[in-house]
């Protein structure tokens, strides 16, 4: 760890186009994008990342917005801060799970400066927003010099800190469809101390059919237990089309725990992470179910 950052040239584009243009000019190795910089600046101090050119997009105000309508659903500009999401009345009303999630992302200080797009683009497998957007069936809009594309939230992260973003691309927007009726969503992250990085995290969205008895649709997303946030599709299959019961939820937890592919690290073993997934999926799905019943 060094005290002082290495020298770099600093660009502060005012538009997405400008930023993309700058990106195209410099090679992947020597050029990095910084938004809030809450992760990147630390890597730079450690000299693990030493860009010659830093494209500082924090000032692109056009990417700072939250909009919602019933048809289009929710749209969040990539440079919206975590704090803005946490405090947004629209999100509070239609997607309270997002506000809940945000409240446990690092510290208020980080949330005040760090951006949602920066967080997702960083591709940290233990990041909080990604599993929630996956559970919410979110899509990510990506801008490139040759036009735009959209990918499913679940396909965005490829592995440890690796995403589908090409070097000359920029994540610009997160889109979340309006929730179907009778849908409950819950996110829980497990860490020994509150506000810490997740040891394991689970987001579940459950939609009940009109009579609120049977689960018509379900999405289960896991964080921190694989190289990238992932869907627990086998666990989903166990619940989909079924009447939710404690026993069924436990089975879903078991399935998810088998689907996950955690690794042992200095703090926790693979077995323990699997155990956590088992317990968390059961509990979180139950809460999502309770919420769906009330929705």
């Amino acid at each position: 760890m060094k005290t002082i950052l290495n020298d770099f040239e600093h660009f502060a584009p005012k538009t997405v186009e400008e930023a993309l243009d700058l990106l195209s000019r410099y090679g992947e190795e020597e050029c990095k994008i910084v938004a809030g910089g809450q992760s990147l600046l630390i890597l730079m101090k450690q000299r693990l990342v030493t860009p010659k050119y830093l494209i500082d997009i924090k000032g692109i105000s056009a990417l700072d917005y939250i909009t919602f309508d019933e048809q289009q659903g929710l749209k969040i500009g990539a440079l919206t801060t975590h704090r803005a999401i946490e405090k947004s009345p629209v999100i509070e009303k239609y997607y309270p799970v997002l506000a809940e999630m945000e409240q446990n992302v690092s510290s208020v200080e980080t949330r005040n400066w760090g951006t949602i797009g920066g967080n997702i683009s960083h591709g940290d497998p233990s990041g909080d927003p990604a599993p929630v957007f996956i559970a919410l069936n979110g899509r990510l809009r990506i801008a490139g010099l040759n036009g735009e594309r959209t990918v499913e939230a679940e396909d965005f992260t490829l592995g440890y800190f690796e995403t589908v973003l090409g070097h000359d691309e920029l994540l610009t927007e997160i889109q979340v469809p309006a929730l179907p009726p009778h849908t409950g969503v819950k996110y829980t992250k497990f860490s020994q101390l509150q506000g810490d990085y997740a040891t394991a995290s689970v987001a579940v969205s459950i939609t009940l059919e009109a009579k609120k008895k049977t689960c018509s649709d379900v999405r289960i997303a896991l964080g921190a237990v694989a190289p990238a946030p992932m869907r627990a599709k086998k666990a989903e299959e166990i619940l989909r089309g079924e009447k939710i019961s404690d026993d069924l939820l436990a089975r879903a937890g078991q399935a998810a725990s088998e689907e996950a592919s955690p690794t042992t690290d200095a703090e926790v073993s693979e077995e323990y992470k699997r155990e956590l997934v088992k317990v968390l999926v059961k509990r979180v799905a139950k809460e999502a179910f309770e919420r769906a019943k009330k929705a």
Partner: protein
Amino acid sequence: MSEYSVIGKPIKNVDGVAKVTGEAVYAFDMTLPNMLYGKLLRSPHPHAKIISIDTTEAQKLPGVKAIITGKDTPGGKWGLWRRYPELCDQTALATEKVRYIGEPVAAVAATSIDIAERALDLIQVEYEPLPAVFDPLEAIKDDAPLVHEDFENNINATRHIEWGNVDEAFKAADYIREDRFTLSSQHHAPMEVHNALASYDKGTGRLTVWASTQSPYFLQLGLADALKMREGDIRVIKPHVGGGFGGKNSTMPESVNAALLSKKTGRPVKIVYNREEEFIATEHRTAMNLAIKIGLKKDGTILAKEVKIITDGGAYTGLGATTLYLAGTFITFPYKTPNYRYDGFRTYTNTMWSSSMRGFGAVSTVYAAETQLDRAAHDLGIDPLEIRRRNAMTPGYEAPGQYKVESCGILECIDKMKERVKEKWPKLEKDEGIGFATFAYMSGGIFNWIDTPYAFSGAMVKVNIDGTVDLFTQASDIGQGSNTVAAMICAEVLGIDVEDIRLHLGDTAITLTDLGAWGSRETLMNGNAIKAAAEEVKKKLISVARMKLGENIVYDLVVKNKRIYLELRPERGFSYYDIVRDAIKENDGEPLIGIGHYTPHNKGMISPAYGMGIQAVRAKVDRETGHIELRDVIVVHDCGQTINPLGARGQVEGSTQMGLGFGLCEEILMDNGLIINPSFVDYKLIRFRDMPPIELIDVPTYDPEGPFGAKEAAEATASPGAAALANAVYHAVGAEFDTNVLRPEKVLKAIREKEKKDRAGK
């Protein structure tokens, strides 16, 4: 005791305004004109021969003003155990070989931190890695690599205590149990990192150092030994210090190398560690292997205890040898132990060395002793509070040849706790438990390992013509609030306000020697020195007043509320201010000065007085994940006469946080001698949301040795947290632990084991 006008009152921190306005200056904030920035190149190997160091390229970097390696140092060795020169094993820069990852091998001074850091990258060091040893039990083997060639089997220090007849007592016991523990290290993690600014004056050959230190005097001695200079030619100044907790007692390479670089360049040099350096290359709590055997009567009375400790000392001595001594003592507290045997060994290993940390010696041993006691109580069918009560020390209790406990409120503490818990937590939720642990600690140490001929504490009081007071003290306020306590004691004696006192602090050139802030010594030891100094002045004032009154000598005079008057006829007296003026004028203008000092005498081997008490932790365990939720804490303590209840509460809260951290989450993770979590991201500290509320109940006693009856407060309270937490988990779900950091995975495993045992039992 209620007649005090300052003592026992909630007095606001005398440094408060400076600290809330950002004006308080820490060594970290200091710069001097023309100052250079120093950085240390550190060894990446745990144990390696240094073949060569090539600084040519680094020298060429513009802005680099000096580079030194081991051969450029005067070669002085130093340490805190100066009584035993062979334990003075530290060096400024490694020369022949490196002994831990992070040991400095070269130092650079440059015109900016940036250049200094770049210069480090240009220094080429060739190492020949040597086999290294990290485990203390491996280190003592005959074929283990030697960390210091002169210390065979890597044994750095030993300590043996025995009293009574242990073997006979075990034979007489109804119940015996043995438990083994591996107790981990813990980092002090002070908010202000180690840093020092050194300025050498070529003209006079004198050196001034501003440093983040707990003991300016220790630093002065360390620098003198390291630089082979006279003590008197070194002036150490301690500005505000951003926390120490035992980690800033030793003279560390940053101050020595800043001084060497300043000497070489003729310019002031400042070295500031970054947080990673703070984690890998500053001292930490002593990890240990501990075996404890206890023999009890059926009714829970302790008959005998036998304790074995092998500590992981790391590469150098620091205060780790003291830790070994204190561990052997405090594992008996606060219980009557008629028969006791202790064998302690401190080993050298190829890791950053371990040393003193808040409650050193006690924190780890309390964990072992108090969790064991709960298991014994459970087996014997005795209530955990009752077994503690039955064995509690009483005033005047003596351990033969070791210590004598004068004031002792532990029984009252236990009784108060019992009452309060019943009232506060009448019913527990499922999987919720309450755990208790007692604690005790010294009020300053007696053993003179530093080998100083000076008094342990000294203070000087100068009263000005207008009645204001300049108090000169080397007592080190490192956050614990000793400045406020110092001013309060002085104000109480002279009958004036805290605001009338100006403090002159922590400067070895202008304050009388004090050994510094460790082992909870400032209130009792420095407090006694200040009290004596102020009383000397008071005596002078009284004699002047007496003469003016012309009263017979049998009438006692009181100095209080800025007046000096006859105790029995308060209306007869004078204003304090008038007497001060008269005293100075009548004595031919001689300034009104009092000097006081304190050194404990005839107080045994350990300490003049002991603070103590009991803590309760209420916690809830998640049986499926092993997660522990800290819910509530009660601390009942006896710190003698509390000097400042506000400050004492702050200290109790803070030390409880540290003790709970030791039990819950703080863990230094190591891989082949490398600390792999050297940051606040990966080294887990309790923060706001996980900190439970604490209720503090004071059991006042009066210790004859302490100033106004005061003794240790809130170092002892660092010890019980981990034990009380483990006991709470034990009572909630039956899980037992032989290590201290109760991370969820460990808890879950223990729960499963317990369930398995229960099933097998059925």
